[in-house]
């Protein structure tokens, strides 16, 4: 079977439009199963009609991003937290 999804690095450009930090380097925790891991390790479906990033552990949706003309919609319901590395 062919691989249907991309990896989380596919989120870097689209999320870079919204956030000043590289979110793909952050550690996210899945709201469904609690698995924590780098955003870059999520399984990403899309990019059309929107990016859907799923947990590699349980396949539930962790993050969704739709880019329309003049606006983006970001859904983080499936994320408990994002740990963002920052300088001291």
């Amino acid at each position, binding site marked *: 079977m062919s691989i*249907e*999804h991309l990896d989380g690095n596919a989120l870097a450009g689209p999320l870079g439009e919204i956030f000043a930090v590289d979110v793909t380097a952050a550690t996210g925790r899945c709201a469904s199963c609690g698995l924590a891991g780098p955003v870059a390790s999520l399984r990403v*479906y*899309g990019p*059309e*009609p*929107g990016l*859907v990033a*799923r947990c590699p552990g349980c*396949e*539930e*949706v962790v993050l*969704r*991003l*739709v880019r*329309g*003309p003049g*606006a*983006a*919609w970001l*859904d983080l319901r499936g994320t408990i937290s994002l740990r963002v590395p920052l300088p001291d």
Partner: protein
Amino acid sequence: MAIISRGFRGRRTEDRDRLPPGQYEERGFPVLSAGPTPRVPLDRWEFAIDTEAERTHRWTWDELMALPAETPTVDIHCVTKWSKFDTTWEGVSLDVLFEDVETTADYALVHSYGGYTTNLPLEDLLDGKAWIVHRFDGEELEPRHGGPARLLVPHLYFWKSAKWVRGIRLMTEEWPGFWETAGYHDYGDPWREQRYQGD
């Protein structure tokens, strides 16, 4: 004199009239997915309509196959701007499935194997406008296109035609589905170009 033959020009004009605003004609059948393709064995497949009064109407695969089938030929329009003309399907009209369903609900939330959902007014599923289809282009519907069965509601953008359909929940208030909670339009009429919220 025109170099293009009359017949050819005639067809082009006609096809242009069939294309909603902002769409282009696609001859292939692109696959868009928001998750892994569910695999549903037919002996465990079921379709259910749940009413607002908590009544459930269920069909097994064999029961669905025993119902009268129709073979709609329709144009389909994806919100990602491709349209495909004269797609041929086989399936059961929702009018047949709703025959014994008593409801005063105005809205439907369609749900699928794999967790996908989409919302639309109940009236858009009735009066010959929607089907549960299980064959495409003379063949069994492939899993990547929504097999064993998907909803077909061709007068709305194709994300409303939920793949791997599992059931319909009838509701007195509109409840936005998967893409409708992420910026896409609640109704999605391609002729009014209702792609995103606010369109």
